């Protein structure tokens, strides 16, 4: 029974944090695909159209994988 509960909890009730990370992954793949296709970096709008979500949603999802920039990293560690 505990296992079923865990399954339901995992599958039926998805927390926002998890869903944002999934979206961030999709954004990463879409960005790579579009870059190949277009021969340049895609814009947020182009990625948004590919994934059929608002560009503001992209801004929010990207935050779930936010890492300070390289320079910042080097300095801080």
């Amino acid at each position, binding site marked *: 029974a505990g296992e079923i509960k865990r399954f339901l909890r995992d599958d039926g*009730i*998805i*927390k*926002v*944090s998890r*869903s*944002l990370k999934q979206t961030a992954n999709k954004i990463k793949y879409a960005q790579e695909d579009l870059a190949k296709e277009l021969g340049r970096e895609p814009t947020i709008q182009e990625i948004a159209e590919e994934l059929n979500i*608002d*560009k*503001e*949603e992209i*801004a*929010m999802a990207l*935050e779930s994988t936010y890492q300070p920039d390289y320079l910042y990293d080097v300095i801080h560690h």
Partner: protein
Amino acid sequence: MVEKNYMKVEFLSKSTNESFARVVVAAFASQLDPTIEELSDIKTAVSEAVTNAIIHGYEYNNDGIVIVEATIEGNRIEIIVEDKGKGIPDIKKAMEPFYTSKPDLERSGMGFTVMETFMDELIVESQLGKGTRVKMTKVFNSVVYKE
């Protein structure tokens, strides 16, 4: 101790800012890590209130200011959407399902009903010529907090 947080955002009454407002509230509320469904309820309600401020309060005038405030206390969020627009002459009538003052624009008249359905509490205050203030609260049942 109950965790408390507060934010207030103001923006121009342009329809491009509707999705901006939705994401601002979602980003603030997501600090509590609710379920997707709970967050989506809030986004839907905020969307209706902000759309009302833009199309009814300011009647598509782009230089009005819409104000959205949110307060988190424990697992409860209170959201206020305010405009300094034309106000509502009869709030009771405005809140009736299917009532719309703009049937020509194919409005459904279901905005307030949606807000009531998706949130736990809804209070509408308005003064003619002064503006409208919609206060909504919701408890995230998925969020456990210690008192």
